[in-house]
């Protein structure tokens, strides 16, 4: 599903040049659950942003479903992104001014789904995440675990082929964290590809494969059994 080869990304300020990704090559197959680990500054987040089509690489190739997307412009990237990729963030990134329902509805609005259809799909996904009873609450009225469930609901409401999770349990206690990991595992079992950045060895064990990074390169791959 994803094949990146010799991917490079360099951040430049006036004085410093930081190599975030150094000729990185990775492949992720459809239906896989991959964890990416490594110390701070190793390039995990940069990789995730590029995989999420939020950022573009300086050089190298990025094939997504057999299409070269490395040179896509902003509009094309946005279009591809909103149809295929869901995001789960460490700090949930819910919009405080919108209710749970409205937050989850947002991606459907941007993909142009009709109102009646939206209602049906949002309700279905909220039901699945067991937060239907909170549909009219605002994010700040929810616990961290509930917020992350809303974020996961938002990520999957569009039925994306790929979910990118950036330390999804980082702001949660262990029981809420396990719950979220279970959700992701369930989604993966239903066929969604998941790439997750994490610091937690415990969380990484939910995945099929761990890619360890250092200084913008993969240093090790563990296949989980």
């Amino acid at each position, binding site marked *: 599903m994803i094949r990146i080869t010799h991917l490079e990304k360099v951040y430049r300020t006036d004085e410093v040049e930081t190599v975030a990704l150094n000729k990185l090559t990775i492949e992720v197959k459809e239906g896989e659950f991959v964890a990416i680990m490594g110390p701070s500054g190793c390039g995990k*987040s940069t990789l995730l*942003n590029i995989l*999420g089509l*939020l*950022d573009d690489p300086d050089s190298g190739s990025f094939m997504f479903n057999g299409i070269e997307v490395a040179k896509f412009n*902003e*509009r094309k990237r*946005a*279009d591809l*992104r*909103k*149809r295929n990729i869901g*995001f789960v*963030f*460490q*700090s949930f*990134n*819910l*919009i*405080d*001014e919108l209710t749970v329902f409205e937050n989850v509805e*947002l*991606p459907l609005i*941007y*993909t142009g789904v009709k109102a009646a259809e939206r209602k049906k799909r949002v309700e279905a996904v909220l039901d699945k995440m067991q937060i239907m009873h909170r549909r009219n609450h605002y994010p700040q009225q929810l616990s961290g675990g509930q917020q992350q469930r809303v974020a996961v609901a*938002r990520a999957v409401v569009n039925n994306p082929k790929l979910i990118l999770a950036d330390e999804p349990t980082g702001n949660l206690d262990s029981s809420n964290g396990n719950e979220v990991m279970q959700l992701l595992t369930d989604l993966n079992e239903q066929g969604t590809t998941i790439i997750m950045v994490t610091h937690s060895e415990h969380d990484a064990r939910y995945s099929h494969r761990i890619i360890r990074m250092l200084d913008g390169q993969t240093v090790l791959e563990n296949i989980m059994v």
Partner: protein
Amino acid sequence: MAVAMLIGLWIFDELSFNRYHKNYDRIVKVMDHQGMHGQNNTNDVLPVPLGDALRASYGSDFKYITISRETEEHVIASGDKKFIQAGNYMQADAPEMLSLEMVYGTRAGLKDHSSILLSHSLAKKLFANADPLDKIVQIDATTNVKVTGVFKDLPDNSEFRTTTFIAPFNLFNANKDDWNNYNMSIFAQLNTNAAIDEVSAKIRNVLSDKTKGQEGTHELFLQPMSKWHLYSSFENHVAVTSEQIKFIWFYGIIGAFVLLLACINFMNLSTARSEKRALEIGVRKAVGSARSQLIKQFYTESLVIATFAFILSLCIVQFILPWFNGVADKEMTILWVNPWFWLAGITFTFTTGLLAGSYPALYLSSFHPVRILKGTFRAGRFTAVPRKVLVVVQFTVSIALIIGTIIVYRQIQYAKDRPVGYSQSGLITIQVKSPDFNQKYEALKAELFNTGVVANVARANYSITDTRGWNGGFNWEARPAIEGQSFNTISVTQEYGETVGWQVIQGRNFSKELTSDSAGIILNESAVKLAGLKDPVGQIVKWEPGWRKNSHLKIIGVVSDMVKGSPFKPAYPSVIFLGNGNWLFVRINTNTSIRSALSKIETGFKKTIPTVPFDYKFVDEEYGLKFAAEERIGKLAAFFAILAVFISCMGLFGLASYVAEQRKKEIGIRKVLGASVFSVWKQLSKDFIILVIISCFIAIPFTWYFLNGWLQKYEYRTEISWWIFATAGAGALVITLFTVSFQAIKAAIANPVKSLRTE
């Protein structure tokens, strides 16, 4: 701040009117509440003998009583230098009472019965730098007088600002015993022990006692000098709020408002930066800065900014004051040496600085350092509400001013487009104040025709743009005179109609061949209507004012209405007689250049009437002056409209950047979820558009009410059409979108990765 300073100077100038005169506190004017034919008027024109009557009965209350003829134009000549100058005939105490500052001679100079006091600038015009004392000048080519004094020019904010000479009152040849002729002003200075109200009460019936046989009622009172300029509007004998006072209120409010808006904008822009500065504050607090130190820091910052603003505003005011003086018709200067000005300026700067700095100082310094440093600091959801209210207020004012400006200009244009009933271009007029004008007129005419550049020449007893004679008592054949129905009357020579180019609708013009025309009159359309005549030509009118020999007049023609008074009022109903007058009208040939024509006319004119300066006026320019007051309102309204729009935009820009900053994260999330740049821009702009639409809904009824009231002042007025409101509203929307889009697009194209990474 510069605007507030300009308005402050203007109000100071208005309020300090007449303070130039040292006896300001004790100078009064005798005023008369008149009642006649059911009409109540209040004015200051009084009969000459009243002065002596007051002196005889109440002399002990007054230090000086001085009769004065109204300020009028006369020809003042010395050698070949001749100028038309405004001045007064006044009694001998006037210079002392008005505390004229003498450059040459003394204030007692006027006591000499054949003397004259000149203003410094007139003396320079006449005698250059030579000593003007004891020089002889001639008034209106008839009276020789000796210069006994020269006074410093009176300032622009004095009642007597146009006075360039003062001649002894006895030279005016007024009948000292005529109680029937109301043509003089009486000024006086109270004694130090006399209270104005008591003296006012004492003199109340002096005039009515002396004029028992006359029609009408009179009630005298004294008006102190402090009230002359701003409090001289009366309706039915009661003082009413004058236009000038309304203007002072209006501009005062605008000035305060502009300053307040600027302060709030300053606060706004600084708090909008609060999230950015929050980190700075957090670090400062973390390294041990006390809250009081932070407060001090913010206040110092805003005071420094306010001080710079004050200095900058002084420069700006100095720079635009000449323009503003032109618009406001004043001679204001920055009061560099007035300690009050500096005190006010510094107080003002300090207050502004404190006011503008207080919100950031008190609010920002209260941030909790740990929350800031952890990055969890967020301003509350409702912190934008006061800003939104502010934007609505600013836009309401802006839209109101835009609408106001459009309507004022439309009203001016409407009146300018009005047909005047005669042809103005190439028509010049000269007031010929010379005793031998009657004898020389035919010679002058011949001389002017000889130049070959003159199409026609005529005379009348009034200027065409300011025809003042009014008479009643016309007994029409169809029905007798109606009490209180008066007509504008004017005497003209036979060529007048052709010279000014009026349009004859019925009958004919006056004719040279028909001597019977001396008993003929011409009416204008309004007069025909007012008199209620059908088929007016040939009808006989009986009119017996006493001083006219032939009281049976025959209507020989009807002409179209001419606008001789205010262009905003209906045309005067006019009765036109055959006669003379000292206003000369010259129609220049259409195919000659104006410049060469003028020089030829001047040569001819000077040859025939050398005693009168060739002080011509173009009729179209004179007519244009009638719009001066309205054009001033229009210019000021435009100035304030532009300013208000500018300030509003700054406020809006502040709010937009604040909102964009605050919603950075939200925008980031939306973009990650697939929002396009356009949809983010729409999202951000929508809220502002709503605010502006609210402003429109507040501004439109308010301005409609206010301007409709203003237009009621004019009998000849434009209509307020819906498109004016639509234009102003659309304009405000465009400006809003333009201002907001900068921030909105900036926020929309920002890489969402960056805004989310700060979490």
